[in-house]
């Protein structure tokens, strides 16, 4: 219904546009320039007046009606539903809705059928009144707008203001996204910390949410829960893999950047730079496949060759491949900051008889240090948040170890593990994923904010 109304509104807007435009033309006669605004603006103005109020009504009603409908059903069947738990009521509503719209339902019973009847009745009534209201709004808007059209009507101003409002709304999407992330993470986390104490989560040494499922049937003790949801092994695992990744990416990325910016000739750069860009463009799932299929067995074979026991999901394999993934990230960011160091500094050093490498090590790098530090911070943030490589190549078991040859797990791996598959949305396991997500968000955000600050300070220095 909403869709068909939406389409009719588009048609209405088109028709209003044409009418408005020709009306303005008729009023102006031969002297088009006697109009304050050109005819198209009058057309657009009339279209806006006719369709926009109805559009708002449509969206508003869509948000309200679902809640209204649910409360209607809940009122009507309060006797039957009072015995049910909240998730059961939700399931009941979902099923009733499905019956009403002809969807597939697991269990049908009499109450559900009745509820479905109520819902479809509500739906048809709501559709009827909505259609009438929309039609009335369109008519009022159109008539008002039509009367307003005149030689001195500043239609362009109104249309441009509407365009600007739309532009502002689009800019707001980015802000709303951030708010959405922050609020959804915080709300779910608060619910999680209602079940598991915050400090036990943050400083607990034992992580095995799988056992939460076993005890879910009986009464779960808070003590038990906190033992199960101790996130330190995850943080340690994330840290270990990130460290390995940075040990690979930082020197290789930085040295590549130095070579490209200060040594390589144009021909070499023209080949090497796209090569690094390709490395950056490879999807992470491909790196994950590479890590699991090639690198992990290779490391395991090599380790066993010299008599070391290596897990087939070793932190080393995941970290190494993640490092490869981050190389282009480090090198392009470092390249930017190294190139931003003024040539005059290099010339000054070269003028004293310093070799190129001495100039770079003693002059360029110290000058670019803040930028390089922030590049590294951004790379760390990238590594901490990376998901697919570790999901495919790192382990699931939460070992608290610093041995890179053993399997460790990370925050992102656990988020995926907890949320993939069918889950009750209220269980401590799903909520734990949001708490982990919050930690991840806070860490990466702080790293970014610090890095951007450093870069900004550094830029000001040379601008």
């Amino acid at each position, binding site marked *: 219904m909403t869709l068909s109304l939406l389409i009719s509104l588009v048609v209405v807007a088109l028709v209003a546009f044409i009418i408005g435009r020709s009306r303005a033309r008729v009023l102006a006669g031969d002297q088009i320039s006697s109009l304050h605004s050109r005819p198209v603006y009058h057309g657009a103005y009339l279209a806006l007046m006719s369709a926009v109020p109805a559009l708002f009504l449509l969206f508003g009603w869509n948000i309200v009606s679902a809640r209204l409908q649910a409360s209607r059903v809940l009122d009507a069947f309060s006797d039957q539903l009072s015995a049910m738990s909240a998730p059961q009521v939700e399931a009941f509503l979902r099923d009733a809705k499905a019956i009403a719209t002809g969807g597939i339902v697991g269990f049908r019973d009499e109450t559900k059928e009745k509820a479905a009847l109520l819902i479809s009745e509500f739906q048809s009534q709501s559709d009827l009144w909505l259609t009438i209201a929309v039609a009335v709004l369109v008519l009022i808007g159109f008539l008002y707008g039509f009367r307003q059209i005149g030689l001195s009507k500043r239609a362009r101003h109104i249309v441009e203001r509407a365009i600007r409002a739309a532009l502002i709304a689009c800019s707001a999407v980015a802000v709303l996204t951030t708010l959405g992330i922050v609020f959804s993470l915080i709300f779910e986390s608060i619910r999680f910390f209602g079940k598991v104490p915050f400090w036990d989560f943050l400083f607990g040494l034992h992580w095995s949410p799988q056992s939460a499922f076993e005890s879910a049937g009986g009464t779960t003790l808070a003590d038990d829960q906190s033992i199960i949801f101790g996130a330190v092994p995850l943080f340690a695992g994330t840290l270990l893999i990130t460290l390995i990744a940075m040990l690979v990416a930082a020197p290789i*990325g930085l040295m590549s950047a130095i070579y490209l910016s200060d040594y390589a000739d144009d021909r070499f750069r023209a080949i090497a730079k796209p090569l690094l860009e390709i490395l950056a463009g490879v999807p992470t799932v491909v*790196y994950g496949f590479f890590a699991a299929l090639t690198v992990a067995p290779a490391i395991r074979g090599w380790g066993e060759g010299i008599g070391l026991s290596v897990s087939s999901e070793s932190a080393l394999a995941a970290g190494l491949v993640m490092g490869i993934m981050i190389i282009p990230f480090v090198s392009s960011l470092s390249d930017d900051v190294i190139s931003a160091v003024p040539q005059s500094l290099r010339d000054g050093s070269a003028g004293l008889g310093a070799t190129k490498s001495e100039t*770079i090590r003693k002059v360029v790098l110290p000058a670019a240090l803040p930028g390089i530090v922030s590049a590294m911070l951004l790379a760390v943030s990238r590594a901490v948040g990376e998901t697919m490589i570790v999901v495919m190549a790192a382990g699931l078991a939460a070992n608290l170890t610093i041995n890179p040859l053993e399997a460790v797990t990370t925050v992102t791996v656990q988020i995926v593990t907890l949320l993939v598959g069918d889950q009750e949305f209220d269980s401590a396991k799903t909520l734990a994923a949001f708490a982990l997500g919050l930690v991840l968000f806070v860490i990466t955000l702080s790293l970014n904010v610090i890095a951007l600050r450093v870069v900004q300070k550094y830029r000001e220095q040379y601008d």
Partner: protein
Amino acid sequence: MTDQTLQPITPDGRADADASRRRSDADRRRHTAKRMAAERRFKYAGLASIFVAAAFLVLLLSTVVGNGLPAFTSNNLKLSLDLSAENVDPTDPGKADYRSLINNALKEALPFVSGRSNTRAARKLISSGAPTIARQTILNNPDLVGQSQVIEVPLSDTVDLYLKGLSGDLVSSTPAGSVDISDVSGTVELTSGEAVFAPFVQQARDLLAINAQGLLSRAGGIQRSLDQSASRIAAAQAVLDDAGSTESAKARAARQIEDLTATIERLTAEKANFEARADALKARAQSVSGTEELTENDPSLFVEAAGGLIKITKAGNSGATGEVLVSLANAGTFDTGNWAVKVFEVPESERKISDREIAWTESLRSAGAIESGWNDIFFSRGASREPEMAGIWGAVVGSFLTLIVTLLLSFPIGVAAAIYLEEFAPKNRLTDLIEVNINNLAAVPSIVFGLLGLAVFINFAEFPRSAPLVGGMVLALMTLPTIIIASRAALKAVPPSIREAALGIGASRSQAVFHHVLPLAMPGMLTGTIIGMAQALGETAPLLMIGMVAFIVDIPGGFIDPATVLPVQIYMWADFPELAFQQKTAAAIMVLLVFLVLMNAIAVVLRKRFERRW
């Protein structure tokens, strides 16, 4: 003036001065050489870094291509199906029982297969999806109904891999000497005047020794695990014994000890087993005469003669006992050159394809019934548990639908936001805040967007799970910062003189932007958008959160049908143990990379084409 200054410098003194200058020259030269060496080292370190990165790229791509290429072809079996009217109703050909039609045709192709267990095993040569494919073929060409027709059906993945030579090689040799074969079927005796089987028996024994070594080293590995477990038990015991441990820690330690004890028991048994097998193998390897029993742990030995194939079960130097897998045309004596020995080095127990399957496959191949060609199934079907029936088309369509949603949302919103922020927004704290916000949003891990999608779109707004609509919305939010940042850069690159020119002749601000600035910035915006779309196409993690990881056989037909996308399909296949799936995974990656390369190429062309220097 003093005498001293006039005094000529003594030859000695001059020599001294020269020497000291020479020394300092040498010093300086040494010093310079050292500095130049450091310079070279530094330069080569930089060059090496780039080569290391390039090497990784080459290794990555060659792994993918090497694994993926075989999946682009497939082997099909040509079966002659009896499509006469009594089997297939010409008015409704979809209803026929294609399974039994295929089984009958298979029986004809392999007439020597008898017995219930053999028949069942023979049916496993072809894919369980064969009836579906046959039915599809007939439905596409209803004219075929009415008589016998040769239809191609897919072989099972194990046979397919064998035919591609990926399970091992069947090595053929013709020993000098004649052999006498007792019968055409059943258990047969092979006798020869010469020691025709001696090299193969020796080879088997050599291999036994190698295998024994392998088993021993595996036992060694188990021993290391045992040691580790023992030390962990000790650690847990220490926790138990420590009076300071909390109750919960003690309980955990006790549970751990229990687990570890069980593990130790299991591993000890496994180790003993390995060692016993190794000893037995060694003993057999050392014997020099007599017959050798060839088990499933030994390389398989076949004798080919008169169009038949015999599997050798027991072999001595000049005689052998065997099982006929493919009937011989005739029994009797075969001279040199009329018979051959075939060896498959990988023991039967360590490969998927059995000896009789190899024999039947070879028989079918020599009959010309096997056709190798472009793998249509891979490019036209959805997910399947059977590797030979699994395709990426469902995922490609899912990716396409998802990207359409992403593009329709993120491009207009991103461009509009960029226009507002760059052209209209007053420069104040709020605008700064939005800018900082967008920059930070660009660096938020993608998985967090997945959490947002799960909490807001699925749980709060009750959109369907696994739908391209929701996936597209999540990816749109994720790519929005990229597009906004790129679009703002494109707008910034348009010189202010263009805006002034338009304003100067009385264009309104909106007119100046939409008539002049936007068209000039559009190529840059499109480039940014394509790069954002390429990112979205390769993204996996957020889609896992919103249930696009479900196993979906059907090709999605709309924006709210359950669907999966290419990267998620890759992720799911990568988890399957079968070698065939590993190849499908690599092949799917190749397809994904081709799409990404195409998109980036378009972006590069766009940038080159419309690049404008002011």
